[in-house]
């Protein structure tokens, strides 16, 4: 079974610093999708960035980028120039696209990120 592990329950950095959140996963599949979601205190889950496993280039969305290391099954999120609005729970998620109806997202337990002024 696929699993997703986020080993940092909580992190705290100063505003404008760079922070990296770690995520590892376990799968025997070769093609899959990986996602980072953000859940601010208001609770609405928002997609931050996604990566397709067959693409070697790391995904980037403005201040957010990933370090995808397929062999190591690692998918870390880097937030540059952190802002107060980045304070949230961050979840790493995995999707295996094989199968007729396998649309399940497998989620990590989350990392609580606090940006301090």
């Amino acid at each position, binding site marked *: 079974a696929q699993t*997703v592990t986020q080993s940092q329950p909580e992190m705290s950095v100063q505003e404008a610093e760079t922070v990296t959140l770690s995520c590892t996963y376990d799968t025997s599949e070769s093609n899959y*999708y990986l*996602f980072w979601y953000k859940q601010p205190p*208001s*609770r*609405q*889950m*928002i*997609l931050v960035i*996604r990566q*397709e496993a067959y693409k070697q280039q790391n995904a980037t969305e403005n201040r957010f980028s990933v370090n995808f290391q397929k062999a190591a099954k690692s998918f870390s999120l880097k937030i540059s120039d952190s802002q107060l609005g980045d304070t949230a729970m961050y*979840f790493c*998620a995995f*999707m295996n*696209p094989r199968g*007729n*109806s*396998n*649309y*399940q*997202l*497998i*989620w*990590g*337990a*989350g990392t609580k990120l606090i940006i301090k002024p």
Partner: protein
Amino acid sequence: GAGVSQSPRYKVAKRGQDVALRCDPISGHVSLFWYQQALGQGPEFLTYFQNEAQLDKSGLPSDRFFAERPEGSVSTLKIQRTQQEDSAVYLCASSEGQFRNQPQHFGDGTRLSIL
């Protein structure tokens, strides 16, 4: 609509009561998902609809849980004979098509508390 809408935002029920949670997806979205999120945990998949068809219900924890989307739009998650372990936030998400890598748009969730 502007986003995924869930109601009620909060629900308190006594153990043994039946509850119904509603999800209004983004207009035109084909795919609809339900998740259960326990306090301090990541969401766990419950069920998936493609239009009105329930293609995957493998995550429903027991036969007390039932979901429907009869007209391929609004969905209802029903929990019968609620138990304390059902207390959680129930999240609904929708995505535009049926492709698995498309982003899921989430509602604010319904926080269910069973006394």
